[in-house]
């Protein structure tokens, strides 16, 4: 990074070297936490360290190394996509959805982010002793309804019961298989300079909905999770433009983590504008009250699409014609400057770097 890229401190006595931002992304060893902390599941740097230092070395192979939401592999000339995810949300029911919706939609969306048409899911239930059967039935029925809505079939499953106190009610794991249409090549490392970045709607709805019920916080209006299957919209987008370069759903770690992963994988710079990112006013207020950055809050029914400039307008229009994408907006572009980094233009016309969260985002004291 050259010196002119950095705003120099006004202090004339300043003598330090310009900060080497690229150096800051070097992997650091798992040094300070001998035990797992909640932040290791937050989708930020701590999560990435677990994957890098523990899981990648244990399972080493080229498919896993790509670190996509789903992995695409070939069998007899056809291309399949596979993905798995576990659902541990508390409470099990929340405004706008339930663990059942997340368990189906989450895996469907992970498959969709490879461009695949999701087909089959497995479902495994880890149930704590004492869990009401009526509630389990309700959740299973809701999963069935969600699968129907997404157009996928649950074809295999498993049930385990753990002793009282050894689980938190109910955990669900789903694994999904889908088929990737020919001519589609979507991967986190395909963002190219001048590509346009489209976001499918408002951010931070899911994370704030969960927080409002979990922490007993009440806001003036209800905040609802955005949990939804995105496969129908993705299919329509690919029909218009098979050459979509990147799709990601900004779940844990939020939009900030997703954009950083893409910038890192593609070694391009990403530039967005704060004021172009759609937000529900109530959600924005809730984030302000708690001192949370909405860019770091989880979403469950949104995607980021990176597409060649020539196709951006038609892809945007296609997204807006779907219920799950009606508030889609262009939020930024891929640039040659600051490769591997995400920079936002602020509402007053200045700029700031958007970094990856460390672990769980912490509400500020005041």
């Amino acid at each position, binding site marked *: 990074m050259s010196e002119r890229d950095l705003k120099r401190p006004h202090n004339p006595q300043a003598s330090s070297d310009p900060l080497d931002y690229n150096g*800051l992304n070097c992997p650091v060893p798992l040094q300070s*936490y001998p*035990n797992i902390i909640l932040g290791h599941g937050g989708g930020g740097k701590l999560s990435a360290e677990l994957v890098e230092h523990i899981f990648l070395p244990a399972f080493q192979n080229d498919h896993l190394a790509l670190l996509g939401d789903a992995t695409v592999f070939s069998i007899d000339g056809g291309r399949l996509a596979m993905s798995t995810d576990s659902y541990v949300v508390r409470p099990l029911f929340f405004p706008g959805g339930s663990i059942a919706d997340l368990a189906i939609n989450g895996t469907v969306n992970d498959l969709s982010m490879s461009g695949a048409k999701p087909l089959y899911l497995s479902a495994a239930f880890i149930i704590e002793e004492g869990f009401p059967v009526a509630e389990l039935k309700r959740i299973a029925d809701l999963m069935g309804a969600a699968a129907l809505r997404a157009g996928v079939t649950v074809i295999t499953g498993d049930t385990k019961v753990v002793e009282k106190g050894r689980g938190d009610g109910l955990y669900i794991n789903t694994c999904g298989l889908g088929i990737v249409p020919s001519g589609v090549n979507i991967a986190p490392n395909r963002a190219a300079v001048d590509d346009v970045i489209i976001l499918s709607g408002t951010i931070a709805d899911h994370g704030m909905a969960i927080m409002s019920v979990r922490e007993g916080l009440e806001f003036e209006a209800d905040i609802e999770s955005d949990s939804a299957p995105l496969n129908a919209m993705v299919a329509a987008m690919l029909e218009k433009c098979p050459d979509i370069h990147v799709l990601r759903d900004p779940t844990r770690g939020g939009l900030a983590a997703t954009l950083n992963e893409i910038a890192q994988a593609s070694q391009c710079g990403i530039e967005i504008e704060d004021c172009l990112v759609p937000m529900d006013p109530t959600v924005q207020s809730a984030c302000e009250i708690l*001192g949370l950055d909405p860019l770091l809050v989880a979403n469950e029914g949104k995607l980021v699409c990176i597409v060649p400039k020539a196709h951006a307008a038609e892809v945007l229009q296609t997204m807006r014609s779907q219920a799950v994408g009606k508030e889609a907006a262009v939020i930024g572009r891929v640039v040659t400057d600051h490769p591997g980094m995400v920079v936002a233009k602020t509402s007053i016309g*200045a700029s*700031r*770097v958007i970094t990856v969260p460390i672990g769980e985002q912490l*509400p500020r004291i005041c």
Partner: protein
Amino acid sequence: MKYLTEYRDGAKAQRLAAEIRRIVTQPWAIMEVCGGQTHSIIRNGIDQILPEQVEMIHGPGCPVCVTPLAAIDKALAIASRPEVIFCSFGDMLRVPGSNDDLFKIKGAGGDVRVIYSPLDAVRIARENPEREVVFLAIGFETTAPANAMAVKLAKQQGITNFSALVSHVLVPPAIETIMNSPGNRVNAFLAAGHVCCVTGFAEYPALAAKYNVPIVVTGFEPLDLLEGIRRTVLQLEKGQAKVENAYPRVVSEQGNRAAQAVIEEVFEVTDRGWRGIGTIPGSGWRLNSDYREFDAEYKFTVSDISTCESPLCRAGEVLKGAIKPNQCQAFGKECTPRTPLGATMVSSEGACAAYYNYGRFVHLERPAIAEQVS
């Protein structure tokens, strides 16, 4: 959004910046006292649109950052005890003590809970009569009324399994310390709007007169901050040193009397150690003798814990405005938000974390993003 978007208007911000550019004739160093203001300045890039002559120095107003290491170590010692439910505001959890942080205590089986209101800690105590509930009561004058109210309520309701580990700090003594410190470069202060919302600003005219320094009570949104800076520069250029209120929609001169009353009832002034700065006489509040039985320091006999800071960390110089965060040798190397040496790198309000998270660029001129899809 009401009271939010209208204070983030880009065009108005540029007009205010242009006005500041028009009136400034020489270099000035202005300290924003509050960490929330630092956060907003860096997040919005306000310093990037100011003229070169106006330098913002980030003051010691992040409560998480100035809480002394000894207080953190006391918190960790108490939180490790099996009978304790330890309640804290969220951003205290990652602040490093000598060996651990609250996250590690939690990971090792400690019952550490993030709360949003101090009254939640009192409720948890009521619901868990067989446990000891300890609340980490830190912050400036802003958080003091709610913290005081929690202790008062616990006493009223006879909740004896509740106590508070208090490490409150006060703004005016910190301003004095900065003005008295050798090599001080601060020409003017933006006073913290939300502190003044509680205390009012009757204490400030004496400070402004004694040190011949303008003090402008300022809010937190971009237009609030730019207006505060504009008024400050105007005073500096005219050679004035007055107290002004640029945040009248929230702050009145007398402040919040009800909040002051509960503070007076529960707290008393004490000397307080500031992380990276040292002890400042009369710069803190602790529980007074009427409420001693709710003081966790006495209840758990941790008052003899004292600790040293990392020798690499220059947080004190950052907090006093002597250096910028990126002038510290450890910045971005040994010290990152992932591996913080000092608390200024931990809280998102901390000057070092703000620099790290929102490190700045000169923005190259390009057509607006919205124009490319048409």
